């Protein structure tokens, strides 16, 4: 990953440990930014 090209998304009200859990799970499905963002709005 290039630090200048990192794309950020809010974890909503998840703390960092739980955000990590969800990011790991959604990364088993997709690398697409919009889909990752949607997961954080859904779960």
């Amino acid at each position, binding site marked *: 990953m290039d*630090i200048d090209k*990192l794309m*950020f998304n809010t974890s909503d009200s998840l703390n960092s*440990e739980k955000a*990590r*859990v969800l990011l790991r*799970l959604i990364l088993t499905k997709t690398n697409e930014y919009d889909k990752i963002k949607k997961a954080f709005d859904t779960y």
Partner: protein
Amino acid sequence: MRIKTATAFVLGLTMYLNGLFADEKPTVAILATGGTIAGTGTSASSNAYSAGDMAINTLIASAHGVENLANLKFNQVANIPSPDMNDEVWLKLAKAAQEYLDDDSISGIVITHGTDTMEETAYFLNLVLKTNKPVIITGAMRPATALSADDPIDLYNAVAAAASEEAKGKGVLIVMDDRIFDARDCSKTNTSTLDTFQSWNSGALGYIDFGHIKFYKAPLRKHTMDTEFNIKEIKFLPKVDIVSEYEGGITDILKFVASRPDVKGIVVAGVGDGNLYNGYRQAYV
């Protein structure tokens, strides 16, 4: 007179039904992973102890009356303090939990767990298990040998919740210190107090008083049956690291973590509402 007759009739009917279904207690599976709840201390007034010493059958013996709530099945999945929780145990635990949940003879499950990473395991299971049955995670803040140990009542309440109708369809629940929380919002907030588990942003879903359950709300974020994740399909979890932001910025650490080829994602625990140091703030959506 009429009211009395009706009451007598209802009482009679209840006694008849109780007799009829006396042998039909729900069956609850208890999956043990270790933690303080299975810990033994050096003295009753000390919090120095070794987590995960006790097997689940020894542990359950202290929860007097629990056998009246349900028929119990035991599975010692692991026996570790929860700071040692890892992907291997997570996947083993989740797969074992799913097997019990798929069994028609099981009404619900209880998972005993150390408190340090309980909220992470709860949220993981909340997203990957496919079930409407109650899945209850519980633990203890004090080892079983301590004064006013909390493991007997936590276990009793957890089994009551797992055997209940009320806890169905609410995802994975944390039952600690007479409170019921949803997996998404609940966190450990204090290093030693019995009421350490709280959902600061949304409050407890309900309360449980010696097995008597009162729910006041249910989680609205999607969980269990309504997620796109299924433990039966998960063989490996990509590596994601957490980097904490602070005064002065974390550019060097972020660069190092981002440069590692095995890291597939990064969680930045930003300041305030997730703010990052000058220069990366713009990247925030």
